[in-house]
């Protein structure tokens, strides 16, 4: 099957019932998307599918022909969200952060001026065990202060 990931087409010969997460991590070596639970409860595997934040552990590879998938590796390093995350020194252990960034970028594409309720709603699917939530909120507010284009 063919998957479009970060602007490139990949030919994969894998079980169509395999979650996208494992195609990314093992078949394609894109390890920025993380396994935290495999049940869609933690958000560590968040990617974009046609611009929407989705959990790669719940998406079966066989269902993804024709969509555009973006992973953390597909964002520009100078993306305002990434720059905001760096400026606010958001990460501690860092394991949840690629997923947080992917959810935040999807939020800001859909809603460039989110209020706190919008932020909480969009981000509550992303767990952090290190307690970086206050800085995540600050980083999103900071990134929202700029014009957001696709990364």
């Amino acid at each position: 099957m063919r998957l479009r990931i970060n602007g490139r087409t990949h030919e994969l010969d894998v079980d169509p019932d395999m979650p996208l997460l494992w195609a990314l991590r093992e078949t394609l070596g894109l390890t920025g998307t993380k396994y935290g639970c495999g049940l869609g409860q933690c958000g560590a595997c968040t990617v974009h599918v046609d611009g929407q934040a989705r959990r790669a552990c719940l998406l079966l590879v066989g269902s993804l022909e024709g969509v555009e998938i973006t992973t953390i590796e597909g964002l520009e390093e100078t993306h305002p969200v990434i720059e905001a995350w760096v400026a606010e020194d958001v990460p501690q252990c860092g394991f949840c952060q690629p997923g947080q960034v992917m959810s935040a970028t999807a939020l800001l594409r859909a809603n460039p001026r989110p209020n706190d309720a919008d932020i909480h709603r969009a981000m509550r699917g992303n767990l952090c065990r290190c307690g970086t939530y206050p800085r995540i909120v600050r980083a999103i507010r900071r990134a929202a202060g700029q014009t957001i284009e696709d990364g």
Partner: protein
Amino acid sequence: MSDDAPRVRLTRRRWLVGGAAVGGGLLALRFAWSTSAPAPTEPDPEPTEAMPPLPGELAAWVRIARDGAVTVIVPKVEMGQGIVTTACALVAEEMGAAMSQVTPELAPAAEVYADALFERQSTVGSTSIETLYTPLREVGARVRALLEAAAAERWSIDVARCEARDGHVHDGERSLGFGELAEAAASVPVPERVPLRPLGEHRLLGRSQPRLDTREKVLGRTVYSSDVTLPGMLVAQLVQAPSVGSTLGALDPAPALAVPGVRAVEVFEAPYPTVAVVAESFWAAKRGRRALEVPWDEPMADVDDAALAAELEGFDELVPVPLEGLAAPEATTASLAEAPQRLRRVYQSGYFAHLPMEPPCAVAWVHDGCCEVWGPIQRVTFAVRLVAREAGVPKEAVDYHPVYVGGSFGQGQKPTVVRQAVALSRRLDAPVKVRWTREDDVRHDHYHPAAHLTVEAGWDDEGLRAFTTELRCLHVTAVGYNGVDGALAYTPQVSATQRPRDGSRRARFVPTGALRGVGSIHTGFARESLLDEIAAERGVDPLAQRVAWMRDARGRALLERARGVWDEPKPEGVGHGVAFHRYKGHVSSPHWTRVVVVAEVHANEGRPRPRRLAFFVDCGRVLDPRNAEAQVVGGALYGLSTFFANEIHFDGGRVRESGFHDYPPLRIDEAPRVEVTFVDSDEHPTGVGEIGTTILAPALASAIADLTGGRPRRLPLAPQAR
């Protein structure tokens, strides 16, 4: 556009991150840092930057490249606490390097990295800053001395004219970069004694530094053990013994072996009976695991919460806790008898799970008489011994590859997953990655031990006269009794008893271990809750009582700092509580970290929820304010996730919980406001990694009592409805 092809890390032995190389061949590396340092005697793997190592032991700590890039080898595990950045700042400050030229490298296993308190290479007990504060500055100062001597030699001037700063040695207008001097510096004799810069001249320490690992973490490039891939590596999914004492029944491996990609079904014990489905990929291993029916004989199937609680409460033979400063129990009992007022209460707490964001995962490769290992390891010396034994190789043949860890919170002190990976690699003669699922993590953790505490205090109008604790807890080391001497801050007449160390594992239904905050979680809960109940009986403000009864001067100052927040008018529907603690992560440390927390709760959908936490911390000199604050906030939110509403239950000998749905951590919209105030101090810095977790519970319990009139005497404070 970021290159999305896999990355390669060059170390002594090449290994890949992310699996098969796309387009053939290994790609050249462009990296901020590697995650595995060569041994100090080995040449740098990057030949274009090869330099003679700094002399003697300095080579184990610092490398300087020809272009002036400075690498600081950090003897601690980075699991989010920010140690790599502050370790670099400590060295850079004294060396005169700019942070922009410094890169951290995680240290391999070596005796030179043994911690001063624990005498082993480990990252535990919030002791890293405390133990590295002086030694790392001395390293930096020694390197500066060598660089300044090399410059003085080059310029043929008195070394007193040379000053290292911003990555250069200056003599008036002229300067030489560290890179130009490093080769010459390598042959300067290392001075015995070096003066450290006066604190007033510090330019880095005491100021927040951008963290050196931030960008890579945000970009998803940081290597955790779950990202490590080796050529020919197999992946294992496990079915682990569901309870202590379980044995495997008759197993038919055929359904798993029939799954394409599955190479083997192994039955082994490391340390308990485990079935491993080993395959060429995670997905094949998972499908294989799903296909298996694994029968267990479970002799402990009658163990449930009631049985565990009864066992705890039934510990009658108690012996004194071996902590300095505690009085003999008989003496304290006598003081209690003489006290005009007495109060005795029982407090309890349950089993709590770590749930790090990264579920346990380790990679091991036993080959050619050695064993390479990557994993979430906090105690390196201990792990090397464990790995050597499991691999059947000498300790010296264990190649520990440090990695960044996706949260640990104490779980990495007993990394069962590492032992399992080694056992399988040895069996299968191949590199093996063992991945625990989230369910494995919740069900096979080493939990924070449950505790049953009977505390009694005697007082008069002057103050606290005596305080005793009977600690009933499975764990009889400091993990269980840490903080049980906390009442010494209020009175010298303090004693504590616990069950004797019996050497047998008969009573150990539940595997237990260190969890952030350790024994302070329950001993502090009991002590501070009792003090609040006493204040209520006396009709006295609990903060005022603590101030009046506090013998620790720095503790009293901290309580006074908290008064402002405490005395703020409380909004309608808000309850508040206050607690004090002083924490040390090792019994022989001369330093405490002191903390006061004012906690506010309000009712949300009929249940009490934390609304605001105001911490006041005296940790001596704060080396990096932003990071220290992050640590305290992190500890507070971690504590809320771990024991405000959650605990581990046992049914039929098995753990009931299995994931984020039934052990729900705090989500972003549930986090209360957390404020942290640090005392201005030049005292020796102490750790803040656990301080946010240690004393949350009693302050919240008192806040709930203030709000509702009912005081919870058990953790979790607001259990989920079941």
